[in-house]
């Protein structure tokens, strides 16, 4: 139990210890959670122990190929993250492939991407990215922990141990957000100062959302996960479906549509407070919101192993309102249980785990996805639900 509890505080985008590696070499029970082909535009996804052995981590498999060849590697245990953009994979997971560097003025492009949990430093390479029957051809992806780029510049965290590669225990991150490209910082040398050889890249040259580069079904995705009971589950299986209103299996009809601003935010009303910076993020392993005047009930967990999470003595039930199209409000019910007790159960999927965050942020993390189909509508792409960016959901 101690191990699970300890790993818990390191949330999904950072997980604990380790790093990439070939998923096939993992030996721990339940560590491999490969996606299964469900239909030409759909694969299975899982929440379980996986490689990270971290609660509420959503896993998917991605096939990465040398462009226009059949030389491929299917990498399991990749974090499915609707809160970031683009595919990032550990060098060790694709060591059997020879991927060409993306270049700018004949020099290899290197990226420094920001995650809350740290920086992602590494070269940008070109690959075909495949899931189900969908293909994104020769798109820029980022390679993590690349031995050729082991010296990390100060501008990207330097040697202070702030790299996500040092703590991420999945084989990579698949960012399928509301956005086409990641809008992060790029260089065509290893920078010695903040702006040294920093380059401005057009959208198509940046690390980008593979879904937006599919030939078809490229206007968004649907993540569907089953309901999880109050005490959690050890393993749940759901689906990742590509496209919205493009096939018979991805209709948005009847869904609640949440238009967002250009940065992916909408407004949540909760406990007489307005949270204007609300978002839906499968890469967050809890619901995160300020406790406000509920702080006497939503007390911080006392254990250092669940820092930042709420540990109410009795499970609390709440209702929040989300802002839909035409300013219509939709109620969403959720509950907050004692995080320390939940984690001690040894389960991995929890719908009722929440924690502290500041400002006017309301982070609807993975618990929001259980028992729902969540639609992610890509910026500038249209469906019957509207033109992205938007979220939508059906219960």
């Amino acid at each position, binding site marked *: 139990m101690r191990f699970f509890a300890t790993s818990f505080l390191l*949330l999904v*985008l*950072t997980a604990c210890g380790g790093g990439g590696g070939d998923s096939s070499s993992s030996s721990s029970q339940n560590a491999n959670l490969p996606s299964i082909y469900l239909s030409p535009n759909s694969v299975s996804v899982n929440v379980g122990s996986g490689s990270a052995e971290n609660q509420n981590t959503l896993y998917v498999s991605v096939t990465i190929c040398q462009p226009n060849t059949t030389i491929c590697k299917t990498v399991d245990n990749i974090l499915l993250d609707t809160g970031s953009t683009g595919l990032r994979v550990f060098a060790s997971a694709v060591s059997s492939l020879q991927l060409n560097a993306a270049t700018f003025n004949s020099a290899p492009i290197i990226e420094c991407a920001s995650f809350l*949990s740290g920086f992602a430093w590494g070269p940008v390479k070109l690959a075909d990215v495949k899931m189900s029957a969908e293909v994104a051809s020769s798109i820029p992806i980022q390679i993590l922990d690349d031995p050729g780029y082991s010296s990390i510049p100060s501008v990207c965290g330097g040697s202070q141990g702030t790299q996500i590669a040092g703590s991420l225990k999945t084989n990579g991150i698949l960012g399928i957000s509301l956005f086409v490209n990641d*809008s*992060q910082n790029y260089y065509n040398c290893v920078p010695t100062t903040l702006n040294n050889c920093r380059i*401005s890249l057009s959208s198509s040259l940046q690390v980008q959302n593979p879904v937006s580069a599919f030939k078809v079904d490229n206007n968004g995705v649907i993540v569907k996960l089953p309901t999880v009971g109050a005490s959690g589950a050890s393993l749940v299986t759901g689906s990742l479906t590509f496209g919205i209103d493009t096939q018979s299996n991805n209709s948005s009809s009847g869904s609640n549509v949440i238009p967002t601003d250009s940065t992916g*935010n909408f407004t949540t009303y909760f406990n007489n407070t307005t949270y204007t910076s609300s978002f839906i993020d499968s890469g967050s392993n809890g619901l995160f919101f300020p406790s406000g005047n509920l702080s006497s009930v939503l007390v911080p967990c006392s254990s250092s192993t669940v820092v930042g999470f709420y540990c109410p003595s009795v499970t609390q039930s709440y209702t929040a309102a989300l802002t839909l199209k035409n300013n219509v409000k939709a109620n969403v019910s959720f509950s907050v249980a004692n995080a320390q007790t939940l984690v001690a159960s040894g389960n991995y999927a929890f719908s009722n785990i929440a924690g502290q*965050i500041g*400002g006017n942020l309301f982070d609807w993390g993975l618990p929001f996805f259980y028992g729902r189909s969540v639609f992610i509508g890509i910026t500038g792409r249209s469906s019957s639900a509207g033109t992205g960016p938007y979220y939508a959901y059906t219960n």
Partner: protein
Amino acid sequence: MPNKNPMPKFVGNFFCILLLSFPIFAKAELGGNLASITQEQKTFGSTLTTSPQSTYTIYIQNISPDLVIKEYVSNSGNIFGVAWKGSTLPNFQVLLGNYYSNYLSAQQKNPRLVFLRDDNLDLESGGMMGGYIGRAYLPKQIPAGVSPTAIQ
């Protein structure tokens, strides 16, 4: 080559001390002063605008490609708060100055929800890639009559 003379060793140490005295990035920012903002602007290569209030001034930097940093400077010239919003996170080593270690510590404890609140420092960082948002301020140094909610 045999080391016949202690001098080279001394020179080596002296050089290290010099390096420590002149870090790559100017120390500044939260808890710093106006001069540090000017230095920081050069470091970031940003454009700077100001927004005077009654008891303080907001210095706003726009940093390519899409990051806005606001620094709240009291009339006595002290930076008592910073706020940021953008597609990337700011360089916290530069922005938080002496409080950077507090940030690293909070990040290490719980990376996905960087949140720190004590008598000396309030720090909140959140959002998604493409839409990061956060702030940090020094509760003991906020000018009288100014609400922390002004820092955002």
